[in-house]
């Protein structure tokens, strides 16, 4: 088994409802949904976020979409207009979850290497530029 950050296994989107942030996590490959479901328990996600989430973590399953939905209660400093946070509406909590590392078989780790990140040298200018590209 190898430890791989979620960023290579799933994409995600987050939003807010009051002081609760939600993170919807979607497996790139439906075959990995079960692996994510087994390892990403509410307890594990709560531990990952640590002091960023003052309340509980709830999890809902959407096997039809290969997705898990996490509700992070007490994550937004009071939420909406009360919050003093830069990310007051939890728009990028999704990416914080993608730092979490899960255990996958070696062949899976090999297959997903680089997934979720632009190729080295990528640039928004046509033709690309060596200045761009994600750090693997």
């Amino acid at each position, binding site marked *: 088994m190898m430890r791989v950050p979620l960023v290579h296994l799933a994409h995600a989107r987050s939003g807010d*409802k009051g002081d*609760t942030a939600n993170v*919807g996590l979607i497996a790139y490959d439906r075959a990995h949904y079960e692996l994510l479901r087994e390892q990403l328990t509410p307890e594990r996600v709560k531990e990952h976020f640590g002091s960023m989430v003052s309340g509980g973590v709830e999890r809902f399953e959407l096997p039809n979409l*290969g997705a898990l939905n996490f509700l992070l209660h007490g994550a937004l400093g009071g939420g909406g207009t009360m919050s003093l946070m830069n990310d007051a509406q939890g728009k990028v909590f999704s990416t914080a979850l993608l730092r979490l590392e899960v255990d996958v078989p070696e062949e899976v780790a090999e297959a997903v290497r680089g997934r979720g990140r632009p190729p080295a040298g990528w640039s928004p200018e046509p033709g690309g530029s060596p200045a761009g590209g994600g750090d693997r």
Partner: protein
Amino acid sequence: MNTTVRIGSGQGFWGDDLEAPVRQVERGPIDYLMLDYLAEVTMSIMQKQRARDPSAGYARDFVPLMERIFPRCVEGGVRVVTNAGGVNPEGCAAALVEAGRRAGVSGRACVGLVTGDDLMDRLDELMDAGHELRHMETDAPLASVRDRVQSANAYIGAAPIVRALELGADVIVTGRSTDTALTYGPLMHEFGWSADDHDRIAAGVVAGHINECGAQCTGGNCMIDWWTIPDLADVGFPIIEAAPDGTFVVTKHEGTGGRVTVATVTEQIVYEMGDPATYITPDVIADFTTIQLEDDGPDRVRVEGIRGRAATGFLKVSIAYSAGWKATGTLTYAWPDAAAKARAADRVLRQRLDRLGLVFDEIRTELVGWDSTHGPLAGEPPVDLPEVQLRVGVRAGERAPVERFTREIAPLVLTGPPSVTGFAGGRPRAQEIMAYWPALIRKEAVEPHLVARVEPV
């Protein structure tokens, strides 16, 4: 009966791409243009504006937009449904009629107006009648903040929109209509779905949820392979192609930028999701765990299988109340030891606030460029971080300490740690906080007051 109805989304919030609705009506066929302008915080902003100017309190962008596209909508048979009315739908509709006249559609179009969602003038009567309007998260009764309430609007369903369409409205302006009803209302009207047709209305709700954030389902803010998404500068906004049986396809106009795939649509489906099996709207409870998505060709995703069940006996109420003051100040610190300097400056600032005897409910410090989005998960910043922005926010019940805070940022430039810049924007501004108070109310208290009426341009 129509076999396919196309509902294009033109705005996902107040502040969205002003050209998107124009692209929707000019770049291909649609039957309806849906414009969602409202979010949790929008109603309180509009209420503040109306307090200063009684003719304000709605999404002002909507009026010049309609002046621009009104002729095209009339000639192309595109009906417009929007919650641009905010806290002043009457004022919005009046301005819309004027815009229609200026655009030359007099005698050729009717404006529909939906009112009755605004509970502000009825609040004491409702509370006296036993409606406690308890906060949905804290369970506190509204009485605890009653004297600070600025606006109260019920999230209303599709019935008055359907009624306005039956009356022949070409452009319908509502107040706090639920975002999804702007899409499923026209579908109920076109296909004659009855109120107990839960599965089909639930399908309309899912269509509405996909539509309501504009390009967020067509490649905008999409994480999946984001660097490969073509031509976001000319991004196509979503179009729902719905069938009478409740199945639909998500697509966009040919030749526009962006992308529609199962993955881009899925990202939008999970956005702002709670319990997916229980997505509550005024007209139905939709079960998002029944959604089936399938590729249906380039930039087309087929959606089917959706189940719904009977709605609850309640409507959600969006209440805004004054909840104190806040301000945020920023300064930029440069290499070397940028983060250490920023943290030292934060300490100096806090010592000064403390010596001034200022009391805050919260002081929050973040380093933008290091930990403002991932918090402690970012770890310790490297000493060679090229630069970092110190961002300090304060919140208090009274205005005075917040005002004094706004005068304590700039002095740090000459009296704190070195290598600091980025203060050219001047002092931060103290902002009054309009906080959000979500509550529930029995439908009987609101629905008899909902009115749909139509006026010729």
